[in-house]
C-alpha cells in the first residue's frame, strides 16, 4: 500500500487531474463537432451483405424431400411432409419454427440439391406466436411441370399396359388385370384435384408478393 502523499505528489495529482480531464474533453469535443456515424433506422438502413443469415427461402422445384436439412438442424425446427408419387412429390408442408431457429446455417450445407438458402430478410415481428412457424412452400401439392411429367408417365404406363394387353389379348387372369385401369383412373383424378388447389395457392402467393 501507498505511503502518505508528498507535496510533490499532491501537486502532481492536481495537475494530472486537471490536464487529463482537458485531454478527455478535447477528444469528446472533437467528436461533438463531427458528423454522427449512426443511421436513422427506419428511414435509412445499413447495407446487408449477401451472406447474411436471415429468413430461409426454399427452391421448392429442386427440393427432393430428403430430410437432410431437418436432420442437420441442432434443434429440430424444420419439419417437412410430402407425398411421393413415384419420382414426383406432392407437397404438404415444409415448416420452419422461428421460435426455435438460431440461424446457424447448418441446414443449408448438407442439402444435396442446394435448394434451401438464407435470405437477407430479417424482420420477424409478430404479436402471435403461431406466426413464427413459417411455411416455406411457395405452393402446395405438385408443381405444374411435375404434374405434366407425371401425367406423361401415367400415359406411358397406361400405353404400356395397353400394349401389353394388346399383346396378350386373351387374358389369362382377368381379376388382377382388371384392377389396373381403376388405379390409373384414381391416380389421374388425384392430381387434378391437387392442380386446382395448387393453382389457388399460387395465385394467392402472387398476390401476397405484389
Amino acid at each position, binding site marked *: 500500500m501507498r505511503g502518505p502523499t508528498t507535496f510533490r505528489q499532491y501537486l502532481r*495529482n*492536481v495537475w494530472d487531474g486537471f490536464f487529463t480531464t482537458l485531454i478527455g474533453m478535447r*477528444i*469528446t469535443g472533437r467528436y*461533438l463537432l*463531427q458528423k*454522427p*456515424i*449512426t443511421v*436513422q433506422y427506419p428511414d435509412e438502413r445499413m447495407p446487408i451483405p449477401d451472406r447474411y443469415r436471415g429468413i430461409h427461402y426454399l427452391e421448392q422445384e429442386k427440393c427432393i424431400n430428403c430430410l437432410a436439412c431437418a436432420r442437420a438442424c441442432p434443434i429440430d425446427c424444420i419439419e417437412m411432409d410430402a407425398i411421393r408419387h413415384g419420382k414426383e412429390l406432392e407437397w404438404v408442408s415444409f415448416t420452419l419454427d422461428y421460435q426455435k431457429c438460431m440461424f446457424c446455417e447448418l441446414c443449408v450445407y448438407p442439402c444435396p440439391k442446394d435448394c434451401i438458402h438464407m435470405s437477407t430478410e430479417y424482420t420477424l415481428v409478430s404479436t402471435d406466436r403461431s406466426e413464427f412457424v413459417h411455411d416455406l412452400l411457395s405452393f402446395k401439392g405438385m408443381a405444374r411441370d411435375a404434374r405434366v411429367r407425371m401425367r406423361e408417365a401415367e400415359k406411358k404406363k397406361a400405353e404400356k399396359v395397353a400394349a401389353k394387353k394388346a399383346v396378350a389379348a386373351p387374358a389369362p387372369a382377368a381379376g388382377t388385370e382388371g384392377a389396373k385401369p381403376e388405379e390409373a383412373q384414381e391416380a389421374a383424378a388425384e392430381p387434378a384435384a391437387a392442380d386446382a388447389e395448387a393453382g389457388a395457392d399460387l395465385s394467392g402467393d402472387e398476390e401476397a408478393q405484389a
Partner: protein
Amino acid sequence: MEHGNYVHSLLDGVAPDWVPGWAVVVSTAAVGVALLIAFVAVLAMFSVWLERKVSGHIQCRYGPMYVGGWHGWAQSLADALKLLMKEDLVPIGADRVLFVVAPALVLGSIFGALVAFPFTPGFFFADIDLGIFFILGMSALTTIGVVMAGWASNSKWSLYGAMREAAQVVAYEIPLGISLLVPLMVAGTFNLLEASQMQAGWFGMKWLVFQNPFMIPAAILFFTAALAETKRAPFDLPEAESELVAGFMTEYSGLRWSFFFMEEYAAMFLMSLVAAVFFFGGFESPFTHLAQRAFVGETAAVADLPLLYQLTAGVVLFAKALFGVFVMMWLRWTLPRLRIDQVMTMGYKYLTPLALACVLAAGTWEAIF
C-alpha cells in the same frame, strides 16, 4: 435598495380598488410562482433535450430525432407527458409522508434559490442584499430532501445514495463557499445585481475573472465544487447508476421522479448562473455594452430601463449560464466517476486548501494593487 420592476409590483396598477390588499399580494405571489414553475419546467425540458443532443453528438450518434420534427425538439415534452401519466407508486414499507414530501422539498428549495435571482437588470422576484447567501443556503436544502428520499424509500440502494449525498454535499459546501469568497472580495458585495453592475466597463469585458489573476483558479474550483453540489458527473455518486442502480431515486417513478430530474437541471442552471454573475461578467458583455449605449442614457434609473436593453442583458446572462450547463454536460460525458473516499479527499484535502490559498493570494493581490 430601490430597484425597478419587482415581480410583486406587477399587479399593482392593474388591480381594481375593491380588491383587498392581501388578495393582491396572494395573487401576485401566485403569478410569480406560476411563472417560476413554468420557467423551471421549460428550462429542465430544454436542458434534458440539450443533454441528449450533447451526449449523442459526443458519442457519434444523433440523439432524439423524431418527436416534433426538427432534431426531436419535442422529445422532452413527450417524456414529460409520459411521466405525468405514470402510476403514482409508493413502495410497501416506505415512509409514506417523507416519501411524498422529499421530491417537493428538493424542487422547492431550488425554486427558493431562483427567487433571489435577477433575470434581467430590472426583472426579479426579490432583491436581497445577501443574495448569494440566500441562494447557497436554499440550494443546500436539497440535501435534506435527498436524504429524506433515500431514507423513506426503504431500499438499501437508496440509503447508500442518501448517505453519499449527505457526506458529499457537506464536504463540498466548504470549498464552494470559500472559492466564492474570492469574487465576493474583489467585487465587495453580496448582492448579485451590484456584483453584475460592478463588471461594466472595458467594452463589456471587465469581468471579475479578468480583474485578478487568482480569479481563474477560483473559478475552476468553484465550478468543480458546483459539480459536486449538483451531483453531476464525475461526482454523481448519490445516483451512481452502475453501483447503486439509481441511488436515492431507485424507488421513485413518474412525476416524483421527474421532480428530482428537474431539480438536477435547475440546480445546474442555478450554479451556472452564480458562476456567470460572480466570475463571468453577469449581464455584461460587448453586446450588453452596445445595447446600453444604444438604448440607455447615462443616468437612466434602473426602474425604467428600456425593454430592449433588459432583454439583451437577460439573454446574455442566460447564454452564459447555458454555456456553463453545456460544459457540465461535456464533462459528464467525458469523465468516469470518483469513488466516495476520493470525493471526500478531493473536497477536504484538495479543493478546500486550494480555495483557501486562492482567497489568501487574491486578497494579497487586492491589497497590493
